[in-house]
Each structure stands twice: as structure tokens, then as C-alpha cells.
């Protein structure tokens, strides 16, 4: 789909065990340059484990990760030079003011605070206060600012909008879109499905350390379920709709049809048009419902026709 052939992140059989407990199991991932990739999974699924291996905080038990063309073990400094990182919970020096912290990190990176100040203004962040005195949301803002301030080629954001109010989440989404326009790659982990749906090109789903599937968001949306509720001018029969493409869960009560549609609702609309339609309602297709099946533990027979 994407024109860009180079990969921003590639993993080969990436595996991490913490003693007996598995953190990540044989993860094979390809994040393309210039895309927004979402890694999705419940808490404890292995998202943070993968991210911390990309940045060399922890070392793979086996397998390898290549980030921006560099091996995560051998050339970690090169990777970190060009990567902005926001952890799941941004914890840092409590006694420093936000400005001091940003100054320190800018110094370690050999950069300045120009972009940081612009971002702080944009997120309405008071830089003079101590980190330890900031609310969770404001601390998260400092985390975002420090991740973006060096204008890195790759951004690795672990649960980035945790603690941000909806307005700031919107601002964050705008920021992500701007980054994409300038060719940045973003790797975002989340357990909030609606979040990745809005900003990601592709998502990978991870559960119990294993990457279950990677799909285009558009393709997933095609598979998304839509709940449709139609009120007709006359009485209809369930059998009129039972055979229509993509339609399941057909229920007819007198003038009224409720059903669930997978993918396009075109066939259903065409079938319905044979009758007088008084009212039609459809629930917004959310990825939640598509993903629900990945999350629910139904043995080993999952991964419905991976694209």
C-alpha cells in the first residue's frame, strides 16, 4: 500500500522471557517508514516489553530488533539519537522544574528548547513548575513535549494520551497528523481501540506476548460490524433479509428489522429498498467490535482470515 519501501522498525523472532514469564514471544513486525503504527493489546500483553527492547532498556532473550536501520543491541545510541520516547507513565526527576528537565534532556541530546517552548505553549503547559507538583495530565504533557522536542525521525509513544483530557487528546492527534506530513514514523501503543483507529494507518494486535495480526485500519474497518435498525412502512419477513450478503443476526418484529452487517451495508440497503423505508438507524462501526474477538480468549483457533 505504502510507497515507502524502507522499514522504520523490523523485528525478527523477538522474544523476551522474564524468568518463566513470557513478555514477548516470537514477534515479527515491520513498521514502514512514514506510517503511524498502532500496537494494540490489553495491559500486560507485551507492548511495553517490545518498546523497551527497541530502546535497549531490556535485551531480547532471542531474536532481534532493527530500528531506523540500526541493531537495537549494537547501535542503541544511534537509535536513541533519532527517536523520541514517551513511556506509559512519565516518571522523571520530581525536584526539577519542567523547564530544567527539558533543558537537561536537550543538553544530553545536543539540541535546544525552541521546539519545546512552542509545544509547551500549544499544550498550555507551565514550564516553571516542578515536575513533582504537576497533575498527572500536566506531567504527561511534559512527557509529550520532551518526546517531540528534538524533532526525531521516529516517535515511540507508549499509551500517549493517558491522562489527557479530550481537548488535549484532539491536540495530540493534530500533532501526530502534522508529524506524518513531515515524513515521521510513529509507533503508538494503546489499549484504547478508538484512539488507534483515528490516528493509525496500521495496527498490530498483541496478546499474551504474541503478535496475533497486523492489518490496515481501513481493512479492519471494512470488516467492522454495523448494527442496522430499519423501520418499514409495511410488514416484512425475516427470510427477505436472511440471505443478503454480509447480514447476520436478523430479527424481524412486525414492521421492524434489526440486524448486524459485516463490511459494506450496500446489499442490505438494496434489499431494503424493495419496501417502503420509514426510518433507518445504524450504529457507528467501531473497531472495538472487530477487535473484541481477538481479545476474547477462545483457544488457538483465532486469527480470522488475516489479510
Amino acid at each position: 500500500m505504502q510507497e515507502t519501501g524502507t522499514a522504520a522498525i523490523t523485528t525478527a523472532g523477538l522474544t523476551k522471557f522474564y524468568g518463566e514469564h513470557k513478555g514477548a514471544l516470537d514477534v515479527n513486525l515491520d513498521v514502514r517508514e512514514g506510517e503511524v503504527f498502532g500496537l494494540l493489546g490489553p495491559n500486560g500483553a507485551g507492548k511495553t516489553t517490545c518498546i523497551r527492547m527497541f530502546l535497549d532498556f531490556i535485551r531480547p532473550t532471542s531474536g532481534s530488533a532493527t530500528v531506523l536501520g540500526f541493531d537495537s543491541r549494537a547501535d542503541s545510541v544511534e537509535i536513541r539519537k533519532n527517536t523520541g520516547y514517551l513511556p506509559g507513565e512519565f516518571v522523571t526527576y520530581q525536584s526539577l522544574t519542567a523547564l530544567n528537565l527539558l533543558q537537561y534532556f536537550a543538553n544530553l541530546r545536543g539540541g535546544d528548547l525552541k521546539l519545546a517552548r512552542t509545544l509547551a505553549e500549544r499544550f498550555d503547559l507551565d514550564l516553571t513548575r516542578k515536575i513533582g507538583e504537576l497533575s498527572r495530565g500536566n506531567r504527561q504533557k511534559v512527557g509529550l513535549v520532551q518526546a517531540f522536542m528534538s524533532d526525531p525521525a521516529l516517535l515511540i509513544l507508549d499509551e500517549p494520551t493517558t491522562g489527557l483530557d479530550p481537548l488535549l487528546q484532539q491536540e495530540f492527534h493534530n500533532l501526530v497528523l502534522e508529524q506524518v506530513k513531515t515524513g515521521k514514523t510513529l509507533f503508538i501503543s494503546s489499549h484504547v481501540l478508538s484512539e488507534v483507529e483515528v490516528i493509525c494507518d496500521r495496527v498490530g494486535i498483541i496478546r499474551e506476548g504474541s503478535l496475533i495480526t497486523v492489518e490496515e485500519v481501513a481493512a479492519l474497518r471494512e470488516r467492522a460490524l454495523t448494527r442496522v435498525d430499519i423501520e418499514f412502512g409495511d410488514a416484512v419477513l425475516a427470510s427477505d433479509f436472511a440471505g443478503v450478503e454480509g447480514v447476520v443476526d436478523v430479527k424481524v418484529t412486525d414492521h421492524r428489522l434489526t440486524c448486524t452487517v459485516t463490511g459494506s451495508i450496500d446489499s442490505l440497503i438494496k434489499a431494503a429498498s424493495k419496501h417502503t423505508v420509514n426510518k433507518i438507524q445504524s450504529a457507528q462501526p467501531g473497531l472495538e467490535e472487530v477487535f473484541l474477538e481477538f481479545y476474547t480468549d477462545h483457544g488457538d483457533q483465532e486469527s480470522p482470515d488475516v489479510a
Partner: protein
Amino acid sequence: MLRNVYLKTLRDSKKSILFYSIGSIAIGLYVTLFYPTIRDATGFAEFIEQLPETLKALIGDAETYTTAEGFLNAEMFSFMAPLVIGTFVIIAGMAAIAGEEESHTLDQLLANPITRQSIVLQKAAALLTGLLILVVAMWIGIVSGSKIAGFDLSITGTTQALVSLFALGAVLGLIALSVGAVTGRKGLAGGIAAAVGVVGFLLDTFLSVVELLDPARFISVFYYFNNNDVIINGINIAHFSTLVAIAVIAVVVAVWRFERRDVFN
């Protein structure tokens, strides 16, 4: 002060360095200003002669004790100065790597393009800088105290004793840093370094009286620090080199293990 890890670490401990320096000067002054009282006291030599062996191991014989250098050796260098310096360096060593790790700030520091080796070396350098400031403060306290009290004191001997004290501090502090870098555990780092200090002290003083334990004093850091009574006899190059070697090994192990292990979050 936020230019690099070294300066940031010093910045974090500036209050601690300030208070310990004031304390170091005060102790230097206190011991030296107290000396004339002991020197001029009558019957003190007889009193010391009657002390049990274990206590004599601590303060030396009476003849030496009443000289300025002997007095400082017993009152300053056998216990008080190592205690002050040891406390400072062990706390600093615990905080260096394990402290950052336990307060969850290490991940974010490591997210910057900086090698783990560089972090360890800069942290070690900051610890040694703080230690140096304390030792210099102690020197100022002792030397000015002797001037105020108006007695002759060997400046060379005092300086050499403080150089040896610096080496002891480096060993204890860098062991704490090293254990923290290897394990990521602050409590363990402090515990092991303190044990090295306390056991070393006991082996070289009270326990050295126990004949069975006497050979064990060679594993004591205090033996290498001041068994030679540095302020009186000058620095023993072999002993001093041993301390330096231990300090270097501690740093090498810290770098080697810290580079190869997972960082806790």
C-alpha cells in the same frame, strides 16, 4: 549544572555536599582545638596505659597519643573522619544508579543518546568530586584548627592521611555504586558497602586483638587505609595502591555488568 550527567548529579547533591563540608570543617576544628587540653593534662598517659588492649588498639599507645599527630590519628582518622566520609559516599553511591532505577527515572535518562558506560563513569566522577570537596574541607578544618590552637602539626602527614582517607571513601562509595549498578537494588548497595566499612573497621581495630582473627585484617579496607598510621609514618604506597585498585575494579565491574543487564522499570 544541567549540561551533562556529571554536573546534574553534583547539582542533585549540592545540599548534601554543603552540609557534609561544614561538618567536615567542624570536626577538623573540634579535634584540633581539643588537642591542647589532652596534651597539657597530667596523668593522662598513665590512664591510657591502664586501658584494656582492645581500646589501645583504637587509640594507640600513650606516648604517641599525646603528640599532635598521634592524637589526630586516634581521634580523627581511626573513626570519626571515616564515619563522616563513609556515610556521605555510601549514600551517594546508592543513589547513583540503583537510586535512579528505584525512583524510575533511569528509563527516561537512558532514552537519551548516552551510553550506559558514560552514565556510570559520570556518576562515579561526581561521587569522587563530592568526596574530594569533603576531604579538602576536612583539611581546612584541621590545619586552621592547629593554627588557631597554636601547635605544630605536620602538614605533609595530615595531607597524606587525607589522601588515604580519600582512597578509603572512593572504595566505599564506588562499591555502593557498583553493587547498585550490578543489581539495581539500592538497599543492597548500601548494605554491602556499609558492611565492607564496618567489618573492615572491626577487623582492623578491636578484633585485631583476637589472635585468631589477626590475619584477617588483610582483607580489611581499614588496614589499607590507616594501619600504617599515615599521619605519622606517611603514606604506604602498597596500601594506597590496593585501595585504588579496589576502587577501579568496582567501577570496571559496574560498567561491565550494567551494560549487559536489563534495566528495571
